[in-house]
């Protein structure tokens, strides 16, 4: 068969296959409260400090055909009100994340995690280009600001193109999944991890049972 014709048939077949979804609720552990957001000495905060963003967990699937894309789009994680805009960001492998500063004072995002060690240096409000880091190894990356000790966030790097985050109550819905059997993973921090098997077929939404904890590789 002529190659373009085969490609077209395969594409039509893929388009015709109804995608499904998986939904569930994670038993998120009680998250330790962040440190009190005050500066011991003056000079590093000149605006209003926002409350920290609510805690979330990351959810993703792995299986045949789910690997992260070769060139995922760039994602931004802003610093606003002397907080990271999100407490947890899930990104596919090879994603470049930029860190725009929306505050009038310097921020200095850094991570000394084994998954990704980087230091964005001091950068000011609306500075362009914003500092970036590319995450080319799956795992959990803890972010901090060198200047503002209370600022914390997590980037969860996954080798998958199907991922989402929970809400603060642990609820999630992962949509657009092609038919198949996959391993569904969820992770809150280094300790709270879950995995289970899910089968997607007929465009249905299936529920995931995360009452049993398991190990994320």
């Amino acid at each position, binding site marked *: 068969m002529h190659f373009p014709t085969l490609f077209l048939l395969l594409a039509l077949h893929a388009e015709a296959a109804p995608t499904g979804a998986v939904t569930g609720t994670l038993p998120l552990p009680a998250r330790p409260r962040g440190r009190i957001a005050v500066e011991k000495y003056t000079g590093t905060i000149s605006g209003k400090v926002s409350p920290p963003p609510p805690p979330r967990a990351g959810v993703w699937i792995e299986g045949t055909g789910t690997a992260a894309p070769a060139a995922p789009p760039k994602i931004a994680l802003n610093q606003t009100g002397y907080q990271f805009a999100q407490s947890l960001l899930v990104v596919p492998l090879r994603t470049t994340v930029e860190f725009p500063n929306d505050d009038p*004072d310097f921020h200095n995002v850094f991570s000394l995690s084994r998954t990704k060690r980087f230091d964005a*240096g001091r*950068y000011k409000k609306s500075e362009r280009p914003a500092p970036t880091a590319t995450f080319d190894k799956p795992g959990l990356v803890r972010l901090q600001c060198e200047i503002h000790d209370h600022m914390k966030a997590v980037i969860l790097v996954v080798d998958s193109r199907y991922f989402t985050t929970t809400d603060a109550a642990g609820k999630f819905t992962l949509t657009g999944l092609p038919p198949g059997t996959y391993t569904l993973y969820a992770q809150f921090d280094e300790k709270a991890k879950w995995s289970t098997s899910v089968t997607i077929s007929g465009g249905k939404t299936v529920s995931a049972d995360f009452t049993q904890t398991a190990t994320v590789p």
Partner: protein
Amino acid sequence: MKALLLPFTAALACAQDGITFGPENGTFQIDIRPSLEAVIWSGDTPAPALLGYDDDAFFAPRFSLDIDAAAGENFTFHSTTRWDRGFDAGSAPDGELRIDEAFLRWRVFDDQRLNFQVGKYASFFGSWSGQHDFFDDPFLLAPLPYSQLIGVSPTSPGSPLNTGGPGGGAVPLSLKSKDQWASMIWGAGYGIGGGAFGSTEHFDYALEVKNAALSSHPDAWQEINFSHPTVTARVGYRPDATWAFGLSASRGSWPEVNAVGVDRDNLVQNSLGLDVRWARHDWIVSGEVVLTEFETASSGDLQAASWFVQARYKVSPGVWLAARVGQMLANDAVGPGGAAFAWQSDVWRTELGGGWRIRPSVLLKAGYTFTHTEDDPVAGEHLWGTGIGWRF
């Protein structure tokens, strides 16, 4: 080996955030964070700066307990309690327990426009006191204006000058007991008092009234006695985050004890400081100029000037190098016969430092300091320091 290292690794992973207490509704919260800093000093003796030991090497551990408490959105309390071998390493070789900071702060509005603070806390003068914590300061030693003895004695206000040397001039301070002499500014100046401060996007200000002069010893900071107060103010301007300029002024009685025939309120330390900071990406460059004047009863006004410039550069994530140079100069005092004589030797100091933040909660620092004091052949010049800080 892996089994042996596992508990250590686990402890490191748990470290950094301390312990937090408080109800879920967030109306009240207490954060407790212990930390350990351990520095090994070595080099010439007697040790330069304010270090108080006479050995070739000195081990200076410091255990700290930081407590932060918040009630509602606008009231916070902070305290720092330390056990170490002296506020200046070696000044209490058998160890001492101190409350270095304990203050209550009221933030009037949601932003930083107006805050009131009362208690024991670091001085608002200059910019260094705001970054003197182990994890914030790229060096192990305070800058020259904050850590160099000068020849005026706040414990002998009747005859405060450093005399008795050749020709009636100054005796090398390195030969004298360090606890008798002042520094232009003694460390972070944890005096007791109260004040107001605030910040907007481009300006900040601070005003405080404290119990002790900038030059006073740590012992004087503890006394709850405001009969001879010191008033300090600072205004700052930041065109944007890259540049910061500050102008500080302070005035207060410098004697720490009473003496017959001496009116302490007439013996005033006046200080003026200018600080500048430029930062961008991996660089932070900053400097200060401090001018100070000690009014005396019969020897004229003793004036000293000191400056320093320092730079820190991050060479890779968590690793930085730093350098600092500083100088101190002084005028001549008026002797009993009206002749001028040197009351303070000129001093040069050059420092190199490096740091490696192994983990967010663990920092290794090392530094070398060369201090040259004019006309003081016995003063220690070379000083090496290596330290580790660990926040639990």
